[in-house]
């Protein structure tokens, strides 16, 4: 293996986690590793800054572009190129990491890079037996290198709902259940990324779906919101717009003033960056609320 430049004791436990996580667990900051050096946001002494919010904070002002797609395009995937896919392997088991790197390195369609070249890699593989907060922290770190950074595949079992939520929120591109995982599955997943297919195990999908359902009824409904991002009042108005009613007619029907209706529409347009009422109607239909 060509990994001469990696310090011998590199271990996933030393991998950078978010500062807030470290603080929340009451642990002392860990010494910097070379992967933290890439991040460049640790202080010179190599200590992660300590602060106290209960959830790991997102870097402010940085909107992680989603690999999952927006209105037009579904899952981003890898570029469809013919050259080998560059992969970096992480594991909390050093032997496993070496073995995986060696096995994958033999395959002609895959090129294994050392962990120091993480930002240049196209895919990051994280292989663990037990998924912990640390694992999720690592995934969040890797995905924070987006958009130029690697897509992450986790080989492990996402058993806890809050892990599922954090991992998907961070933009995890694929999950392979640990039991029975063989390298052919790993290779299939990596090649699948090339074709733009997102692989998640059935139980993870079920967990995501049930969270969405319960969020809808518990957190969204009381606030009058819906999964589409449109407020209930806005949907009422847009529904009538779709029927071809004018502002005045809508105001009459819903018992609002014309100014209120105009404000509602304007609020929708500006919040969702829509250009006009026509686009608002199209958005509502495409989101499945009409």
């Amino acid at each position, binding site marked *: 293996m060509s990994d001469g430049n990696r310090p011998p004791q590199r271990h996933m436990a030393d991998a950078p986690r978010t500062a807030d996580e470290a603080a929340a667990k009451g642990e002392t900051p860990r010494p910097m590793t070379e992967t933290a050096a890439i991040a460049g946001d640790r202080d010179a002494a190599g200590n992660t800054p300590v602060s106290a919010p209960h959830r790991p904070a997102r870097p402010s002002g940085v909107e992680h572009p*989603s690999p999952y797609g927006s209105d037009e395009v579904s899952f981003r995937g890898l570029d469809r190129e013919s050259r080998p896919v560059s992969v970096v392997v992480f594991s909390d088991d050093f032997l496993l990491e070496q073995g995986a790197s060696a096995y994958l390195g033999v395959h002609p369609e895959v090129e294994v890079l050392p962990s120091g070249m993480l930002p240049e890699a196209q895919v990051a593989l994280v292989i663990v037996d037990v998924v912990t907060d640390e694992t999720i922290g690592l995934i969040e770190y890797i995905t924070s290198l987006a958009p130029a950074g690697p897509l992450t595949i986790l080989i492990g079992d996402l058993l806890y709902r809050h892990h599922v*939520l954090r991992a998907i929120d961070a933009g995890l591109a694929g999950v392979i259940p640990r*039991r029975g995982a063989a390298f052919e599955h790993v290779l299939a997943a990596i090649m699948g990324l090339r074709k*733009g297919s997102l692989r998640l195990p059935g139980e993870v*999908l*079920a967990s*995501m*779906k049930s969270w969405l359902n*319960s969020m809808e009824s518990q957190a969204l409904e009381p606030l009058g919101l819906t999964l589409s991002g449109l407020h209930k009042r806005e949907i009422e108005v847009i529904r009538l717009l779709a029927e071809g009613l004018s502002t005045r007619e809508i105001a009459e029907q819903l018992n609002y003033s014309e100014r209120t209706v105009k404000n509602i529409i304007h609020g929708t347009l500006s919040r969702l960056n829509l250009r006009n009422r026509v686009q608002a109607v199209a958005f509502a239909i495409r989101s499945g609320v009409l």
Partner: protein
Amino acid sequence: MCPRACQPTTAAARSVRCNWGSTRFIRVLSTVLTMNAARTLVRVAPAQHRRAMADLGVVVPASSTAQAPVQVAVIAGDPITGQGVATYLATRPEILVLEADRQQHAQVVLVIVDVISEETFRTMRVLADSADEKPGFVLIGDDLRENQVPRVVSLGMVSVLSRRTADFDQVVQAVLNLRDGRLELPGNAVSWLAERLRNIQRKVLEPNGLCAAGMTEREVEVLAMLADGLDTAEIAKRLNYSERTVKNAIYAVISRLNLRNRAHAVAYAIRNGAI
């Protein structure tokens, strides 16, 4: 010293000094060692254990071995398809196809259509409402549009297979997986789920100060202390709030999330990773 009767049988057990000198200790130890060896085999999680873990918020993949046949109702867009599918499934021991008059007992409803339309969803909604216990659905059709995904998601546990490519083995597997709590969805639906999840976190929860469990930071603070056994007065003192504020926070969580009492609220917070 161990009684003669319980000589350690495994090498590992032998290397352990048996302080208790009881047969029970040796049995427990060898069970543990065997279980560790069995870790690499497929984990079998009986349904009750899986449900109990699911309560804790743990998603446990189950295996489909050694369980009663799944009761399945078959709904198809035309009689030939329906009868053909029912006839084939009758040959599979893992599946029990229900007669038309017993369909309300179905655990999984197989819906086979050419085009997935609003009518499909209406039919599914009627079936879901009229059944004894809300069934899961395996919908076999093509070209699920992204704006139909919310409907699919709101109907409960629904897997969607492509009619063009699915063969019977895949259908049976999908039915069994659904019974075990695993969904199968096409790529655009998975992307939609993932994107919604991110959107909710960022555009709804965060701006309203809610965490992933649907609670505000203050509510989480208070619940964390409740979980440590503190009472209202102590919490108020620690957090420098008035007692009324603390009580209001607790009450807000309970009523908004439809929980029954403080213990339920604490359990909910733990299960959802908030504390």
